[in-house]
């Protein structure tokens, strides 16, 4: 085997062998599925009968639904969940993302800053913050459903601040999405705090020492040194948070049910895609909805990446 005589060849071979398994899986379940679902969005298909090419009519129906939703949002929002479910899901997921992403990023940064201090027991807190990330989201949802009950643990603590009023977290459309958002924030902040922590530990010590000598306070050091240097990590956390939030399915499915719970307040785009495909057997229309979700995620991530300048510029 002359081929194995060269070290470079062995490296190449190792490279190919190592990637062949994940690549095959990714090629089939990732790239092929993505291309297939784009292709499917131009067809009408109930999985059982032959596929029928319908051109852009799935997209036309989708934009009609979005337009109808936009009108209803201002005229009669109670009807949104019945007449424009995709729009309802879109509206909810944008609100959810707007609540979750900034909060989880801020919290994660704070947790990381605390974890980075040389104080006794910091290792314990780091592990404690990270634990939610290792727990199955369905189990987290089930535990929180119990905590969010009208006579539950959370109301027990906040009753003094609400004047005795017990919030019906999961069965009042005003609070359902907030409850789901709180669970998401709790579940993801610890995970991202580890990302921030690893970023914090790579920051150059000399800069801090120089700032200290110049008399910069710890708040000034945070605002003028830490945060600017952490920008690439912040961009990464925001983008990953955005992608995760916009695709949220599990928390809503468990905490609100596949119809999105009371008033459709917990309905999301991914729940709508699931219902359109698997309950209504309209796979083509569901694929068109996924393409729109992809475009939404892609454009928002691109925008954020540009805005936060993912790469450091010297």
């Amino acid at each position: 085997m002359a081929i194995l005589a060269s070290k470079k060849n062995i490296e190449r071979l190792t490279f190919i062998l190592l990637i062949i398994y994940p690549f095959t899986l990714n090629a089939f379940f990732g790239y092929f599925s993505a291309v297939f679902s784009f292709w499917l969005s131009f067809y009408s298909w109930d999985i059982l009968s032959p596929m029928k090419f319908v051109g852009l009519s799935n997209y036309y129906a989708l934009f009609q639904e979005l337009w109808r939703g936009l009108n209803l949002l201002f005229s009669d929002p109670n009807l949104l969940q019945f007449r424009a479910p995709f729009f309802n899901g879109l509206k909810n997921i944008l609100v959810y993302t707007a609540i979750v992403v900034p909060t989880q990023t801020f919290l994660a940064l704070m947790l990381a800053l605390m974890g980075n201090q040389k104080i006794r027991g910091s290792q314990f807190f780091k592990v404690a913050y990270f634990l939610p990330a290792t727990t199955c989201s369905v189990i987290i949802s089930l535990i929180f459903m119990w905590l969010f009950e009208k006579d539950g643990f959370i109301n027990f603590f906040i009753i003094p601040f609400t004047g005795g009023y017990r919030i019906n977290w999961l069965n009042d459309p005003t609070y359902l999405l907030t409850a789901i958002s709180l669970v998401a924030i709790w579940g993801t902040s610890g995970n991202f705090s580890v990302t921030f922590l690893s970023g914090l530990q790579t920051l150059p010590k000399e800069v801090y020492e120089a700032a200290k000598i110049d008399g910069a306070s710890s708040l000034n050091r945070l605002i003028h040194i830490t945060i600017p240097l952490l920008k690439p990590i912040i961009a990464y956390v925001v983008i990953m948070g955005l992608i995760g939030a916009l695709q949220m399915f599990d928390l809503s499915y468990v905490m609100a049910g596949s119809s999105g719970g009371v008033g459709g307040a917990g309905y999301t785009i991914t729940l709508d895609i699931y219902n359109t495909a698997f309950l209504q057997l309209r796979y083509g229309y569901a694929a068109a909805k996924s393409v729109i979700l992809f475009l939404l995620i892609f454009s928002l991530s691109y925008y954020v990446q540009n805005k936060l300048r993912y790469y450091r510029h010297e």
Partner: protein
Amino acid sequence: MRTSAISRLALVLVVVVIVVIIAAGAVALYMQYRPTSPSNVVVISFAGWSAGPTEMANYQKIINDFEAANPNIKIDYEVISQMFFENLLASFAAGKAPDVFYLDSSWAPVFISQGLIYPIGDKLPSDFINQFYPFLLQPFKGSDGKIYGIPKDWSVLSLFYNKDLFSQANVPTPTSSWTWSDLFNYAKIIHDRTGVAGLVVQPDFNRWVPYIMSNGGPSPSFNSASDASYFDNSQVRNAISDFISKVQQGMNASYVVLPADVGAGWNGEAFGKQKAAMAIEGSWTIPYLNGTFPNFKYGVDWDIAPMPQGSSGRVTMAYTVALAVNAHTQHLDEALKFIEYVEGVTGQKTLVVGMGQTLPSIESLSNDPNLWPSHAKELSMVNSYSAVQVFSFGSKTGDLDSKFGQIFLSAFQGKLTTDQVFTELKNAVSSEFSSS
């Protein structure tokens, strides 16, 4: 350069060889461990979901008995515990569907209209088919009048009531003469006297079909956009307006509650936690109460009564699952033999009567001494109903039931006017069938 090109080619060859070796190994492993059978043995694939390990074990026992009695047939039993119908549809699309499988009444119209299942009623002996409750066969009949599935078991809606709360409130327990008005009136009295909600309700359409039909509304069936006219029927409209107003009044005065209002996920849980004195629920509630609330005992603490009656009689809902045979099976005779065994008297004695999860679909088993007393009582009430409507309202049953339920929930909470309710109900039907 030439050497480098050769070594690159050699590298590719090595990779190809390795991939081929891995693939060959995988095939060899598959061949070694796949279910093999002598050439004269037929393998029937059988797919269902499972109510738990006990049911799976019982199925396995019946399958073993069947295989012992029929040495030329092997059953490849597969339990699909999640997203059963999504999996089944995908297996049909891939041409790899099982020979025999569970078919819920709500999905039956899709499978029948698409020609996916065999009209087994044509092949099974009429003596066998005639043993089953006729109304349970109804959803498995195609538009051609043929029978496409045989119900393996079933559940029925009844009125569950808490005997302790009734006695605390000094109220007579429900009887077969109770009307829907009695149900709500006594719910109020119980709440006034005990402080506990009288009735827990769910907004699901299927729970309110008995109300609609017992007040003169026709049996619901939605197969095209024009079937939205069901909600133009004056008796249907009166019944729906009536129960919405009754529930709203009850919710305002707290004698009617939704499960969530009392920290429960569904009616059965609210009833088991004794947060409501009455609930209209299915037979599945019985094993649930027995297992989850062992100190809350049937006959002592709670009991079952027939559904209340309306102006046009007494109606209940039934929920059933059939065994159906793949239209393209290569082993029709063997599949039928298996169905006759599993769903026949012997099979149902073990799988249904002994389990206590559901009710036997064979009429004569309603007198079986091994039935749970609660199940025997439910079966004894069947003849008191003027109609038993099976959960199947056409090809979009599941989706429409969920959409109607969301509309009723908004109506119960006062977020929709009665006119809006009817507009949205009709709109749900027409948009379901007018879309691609």
